[in-house]
């Protein structure tokens, strides 16, 4: 028996708002959080702009002692989980704690921690490596810290599939609940990529824009890195209804695929397979999709391939369905991207407001799509796709449904 899976809590720490209300307000207004990078000295970098969580002061949320064990990426994960769990208003029992899963996505783990350790080791200063460096930097640190904070003792793990990490995590959590393997899940992703050693690697790949992120726009010049975290609380629909929880939306389909093609060049066929798999998983037809939250990185290569993938999977409907890339506002948060975009998609369905692609200047004939340009659209959409296509050709696609009966 497949159980329906409801979303009852959302949390987000992002460059366009440190919590869900502020995040959503920014997206509705098409406000971009892309600014000059402030937490890293960019003198030795070819790009200067990023999307950082503005005015973030960890000591407002964590004790000095706790911070010793928390890399910035784990802090974002924990804060998003706190908000999501509080929103869900869960009534904890020992049994429920034993049946609660925590599934997170992270591409990088604690890169800022690692960068500091390596600078100390190779920098010739002979600086002592802090004994907490391993538990701070491990990719599953956010999942473990969330599980400890809420006392979740069910299946918990972290998925690392580059830019698809959080989408794969949410999909896995969805399947755990649908199959009855768990009775509650906190799931999403978090990332903190702004460490000089890590940014140098992106510089070498030459895909980061010198200005801003303009997905699907003819003059796009690349992606903009972002940081943050987002989490969802999932529970069986019937259980959520029985306890009178506010149902924010549902997860109704999940699909995965591998391009098996090239390590950085995406394949339209591979991405289309994941979209089709999600539709099949949800027992849905292409015409039922009313909105697409795109992977939409704003690189020369991704956007036309994504357009082609949508054409392959949705047919003629691909040119009609409204689509936007919210990365134009919150940046590309890598292993957190799918979670931040999932929160945006769930809220778009709940409120009947489709967020725009910001910074859009001119349509690109190579991306023949119904792009929501710069201003949100009021559309009561029922179902939405959220795409994540990772480097390495690993794809994940989620389908969400508006809350209701």
């Amino acid at each position, binding site marked *: 028996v497949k159980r329906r899976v409801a979303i009852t809590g959302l949390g987000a720490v992002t460059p366009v708002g440190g919590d869900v209300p502020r995040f959503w307000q920014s997206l509705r207004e098409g406000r971009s959080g892309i600014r000059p990078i402030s937490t890293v000295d960019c003198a030795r970098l*070819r790009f200067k702009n990023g999307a950082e969580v503005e005015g973030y002061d960890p000591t407002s949320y964590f004790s000095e002692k706790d911070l010793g064990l928390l890399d910035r990426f784990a802090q974002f994960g924990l804060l998003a989980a706190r908000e999501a769990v509080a929103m869900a208003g869960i009534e904890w029992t020992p049994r429920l704690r034993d049946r609660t899963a925590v599934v997170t996505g992270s591409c990088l783990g604690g890169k800022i921690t690692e960068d500091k350790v390596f600078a100390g080791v190779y920098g010739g200063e002979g600086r002592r490596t802090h004994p907490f460096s391993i538990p701070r930097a491990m990719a599953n640190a956010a999942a473990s810290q969330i599980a400890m904070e809420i006392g979740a003792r069910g299946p918990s793990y972290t998925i690392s599939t580059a830019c698809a990490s959080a989408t794969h995590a949410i999909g896995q959590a969805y399947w755990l609940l649908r199959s009855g393997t768990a009775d509650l899940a906190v799931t999403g992703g978090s990332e903190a990529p702004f460490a000089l050693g890590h940014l140098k690697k992106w510089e*070498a*790949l030459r895909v980061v824009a010198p200005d801003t992120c303009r997905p699907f726009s003819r003059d796009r010049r*690349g992606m903009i890195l972002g940081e943050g975290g987002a989490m969802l609380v999932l529970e069986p629909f019937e259980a959520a209804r029985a306890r009178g929880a506010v149902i924010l939306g549902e997860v109704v389909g999940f699909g995965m695929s591998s391009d098996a093609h*090239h390590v*950085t060049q995406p394949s339209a066929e591979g991405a289309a397979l994941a979209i089709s798999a999600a539709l099949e998983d949800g027992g849905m037809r292409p015409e039922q999709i009313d909105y697409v939250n795109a992977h939409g990185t704003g690189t020369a290569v991704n956007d036309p391939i994504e357009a082609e993938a949508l054409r392959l999977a949705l047919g003629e409907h691909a040119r009609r369905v409204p689509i936007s890339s919210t990365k134009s506002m919150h940046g590309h948060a890598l292993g957190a991207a799918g979670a931040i975009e999932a929160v945006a998609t769930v809220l778009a369905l709940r409120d009947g407001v489709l967020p725009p692609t910001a910074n859009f200047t001119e349509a690109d004939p190579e991306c023949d799509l119904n792009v929501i340009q710069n201003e949100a659209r009021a559309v009561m959409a029922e179902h939405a796709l959220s795409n994540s296509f990772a480097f390495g050709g690993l794809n994940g696609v989620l389908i969400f449904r508006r809350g209701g009966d």
Partner: protein
Amino acid sequence: MDNIESRVLEAITRLQFLEPGRATPASTFEDLGMTSLDSLSLIADLEEQFQIEIPNDQAMAVSTVRQAVECVRRLVPDGALQA
């Protein structure tokens, strides 16, 4: 064949593990089985060898041996290679 051209051909041959003589001034990267990632690694190698900085838009426009040679030639100061 001038100095820049021979060094570009040497770099491609080395990075792509090609038979000597396979890469010629007329080769396209596609002819040589090079992907965009291979092209990036060539560009990085040329930056290091010639002590130059190749901006992203120029790097992205390179997809043949001739374009790579021209790209380097534009950025290397006159006479710098005669030493």
